[in-house]
């Protein structure tokens, strides 16, 4: 079997922010590998650091944030060292493109849609005028916008939410990137439109040989599109593996908790499962495993030492002391053992 090629390799990344005079550590030594042509989903609660993590790949961190340490290797270059605008211009759009969460505010309200897509075409495909316009119309058709001629001249407020997201995707595609990062692409949309957009992305991935990162908190989306899944908590990737690995053989207690929260696993008449407590305060230094205080099955060592990656298989690893040979046997919750059976419902 062909060994997958890693195009993006993140090692022990640390990102900090300056907030009201205090320092917040948003990403705490997170590591990840991205393989060419795959769909990787990064899941986590709000505030887990998913967006920040990905913005660092394009130099789009807010002004009060910075990369403290670690490396982001892309095609042999370390993006963590990129400081100037010129450096990032080599990456943005051309290599890595992003689809933002809220299509309402992502588009310039005072420019026609056509012009906004054309801007990307002119930048990255070196075309102008009529030639560029033709490409724009083709792309609009590709993303499923009917009557592209008419739509070209219209303004964003004349589009519905789903159509606007298609436009944003069109802009990203027009850049002809290697990697496409979709930050919660369907969160702001109706459920019915969600499926369409995901379908569209899958189709585009094939046509343009894209590698896609999906950032989401919706496990349903993950089940739908992901080849591999990375679970993020408190600024760290605590479990990563193929979709099968993570859904059917989860190892980290947080992953168990996440999966248990799926409403589809609820038993009629009984209260739904929720994870007790709140995510930790990232202003303070965290000792040991970040999830320990909320974990009913925590070991004492979880409060003292931070767990390293433990390999479960070639494709699957997790940062939990439960995988240490010295740890006692802890049973997974019964409810999530049934996921395989429930798979169709997801």
């Amino acid at each position, binding site marked *: 079997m062909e060994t997958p090629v890693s195009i993006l390799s993140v090692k022990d990344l640390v990102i900090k922010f300056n*907030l009201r005079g205090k320092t917040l550590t948003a990403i705490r030594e997170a590591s990840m590998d991205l393989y060419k042509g795959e769909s990787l989903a990064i899941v986590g609660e709000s505030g887990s650091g998913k967006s920040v993590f990905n913005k660092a790949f394009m130099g789009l961190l807010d002004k*009060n944030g910075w990369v403290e340490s670690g490396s982001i290797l892309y095609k042999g270059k370390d993006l963590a060292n990129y400081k100037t605008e010129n450096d990032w211009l080599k990456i943005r759009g051309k290599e890595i493109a992003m689809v933002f969460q809220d299509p309402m505010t992502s588009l310039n309200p005072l420019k026609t849609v056509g012009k906004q897509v054309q801007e990307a075409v002119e930048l990255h495909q070196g075309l102008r005028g009529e030639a560029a316009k033709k490409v724009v119309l083709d792309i609009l058709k590709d993303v499923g916008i009917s009557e592209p001629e008419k739509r070209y001249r219209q303004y964003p407020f004349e589009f519905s939410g789903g159509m606007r997201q298609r436009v944003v995707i069109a802009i990203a595609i027009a850049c002809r990137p290697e990697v496409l990062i979709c930050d919660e692409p369907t969160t702001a949309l109706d459920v019915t439109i969600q499926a369409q957009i995901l379908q569209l992305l899958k189709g585009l991935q094939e046509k343009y040989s894209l590698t896609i990162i999906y950032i989401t908190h919706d496990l349903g989306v993950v089940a739908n599109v992901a080849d591999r899944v990375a679970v993020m908590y408190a600024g760290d990737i605590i479990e990563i593996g193929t979709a099968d690995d993570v859904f059917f053989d989860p190892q980290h207690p947080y992953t168990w908790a996440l999966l248990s929260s799926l409403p589809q696993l609820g038993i009629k008449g009984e209260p739904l499962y929720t994870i007790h407590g*709140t995510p930790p305060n990232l202003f303070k230094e965290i000792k040991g495993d970040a999830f320990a205080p909320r974990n009913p099955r*925590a*070991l004492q060592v979880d409060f003292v030492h931070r767990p390293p990656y433990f390999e479960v298989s070639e494709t699957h690893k997790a940062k939990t002391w439960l995988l240490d040979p010295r740890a006692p046997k802890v049973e997974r919750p019964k409810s999530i053992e049934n996921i395989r059976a429930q798979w169709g419902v997801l």
Partner: protein
Amino acid sequence: MSTMLNKPNDGIDETLFTLAEYDARAAELGGYSNYSYWRSTWQVFLKNRTAFVLMIIILVLLIFTMIQPYLPNQKLPNEIYLDPATKMQLRNHPPDAEYWFGTNSIGQDLWARIWSGTRTSLYIGVVVGFLTAILGIIVGAIWGYVRRLERLFTEIYNVFDNIPTTVILVLLTYIMRPSLSTLIFAMCITGWLSVSRMIRNMIVIIRDQEYNLASRCLGTPTGRVITKNLLPYLVSVIMLRIALAIPIAIGSEVFLTYIGLGLPVDIPSLGNLINEGRLVMMSASLRYQLFFPAIVLSIITISFYVMGNAFGDAADPRNHV
């Protein structure tokens, strides 16, 4: 089966690998919120050193203005002083040890006049500031709340908004003949507009904004909704208005005095003093008569303006980062 990715002997105590006690309360402690709106506002305001320095200056100035008449050796602002040698009016006497700011063209002590004038102008500014605030709140609240009157009020607002303030001021003082109360009245009439618009917009937001509805759904008592949701915005808006009203009032007063519609000469005001100074400004030796009132006026207006804006910026939660 799992394989460790680190050294087998990492020196961790084996006994730690046992289940720990689960403390439900510790799980909740993660949340971070020691945010206090007013504390953050004050902190951001203090960080603005210019505003802070000016605030000190203004406080000193204000206190001094109030106590000045009670200090020893102060002269009366309207009294005409005579030259001890000639027994004639001490006209245009340049600043010296006796008359710190000199005298004006009819022999009055400028030092006393300037502080008296400052008191008058500040008085006008503060009164106008408060009255417009009150009037604006009342009108704005009705405008926002009572839907039937909304059309009417909007028309009234448009009418007033469409005429340059200066023209109205001029007209009113012309019709009603200049005096202290006329001035205050005219400034109030033109000043309530923007306050009422602000209040009305706020009321409309209250009416329609979901976070207030959400608060009520959670069972928040109305009192708390008012103090936590509405009051911070209201108070900062009012303070901003009053702070800015003072430079505006002083400015209007100076302009009106210019064209002959200001205060009568026997009530010293910064406007009067500037005007008197203007008449002699062309001759260099007499220029001090313009400088001193102008400097005092500039300090006051700039300080209030900067402080007002700094406070307005500090009160905006977006700046609390």
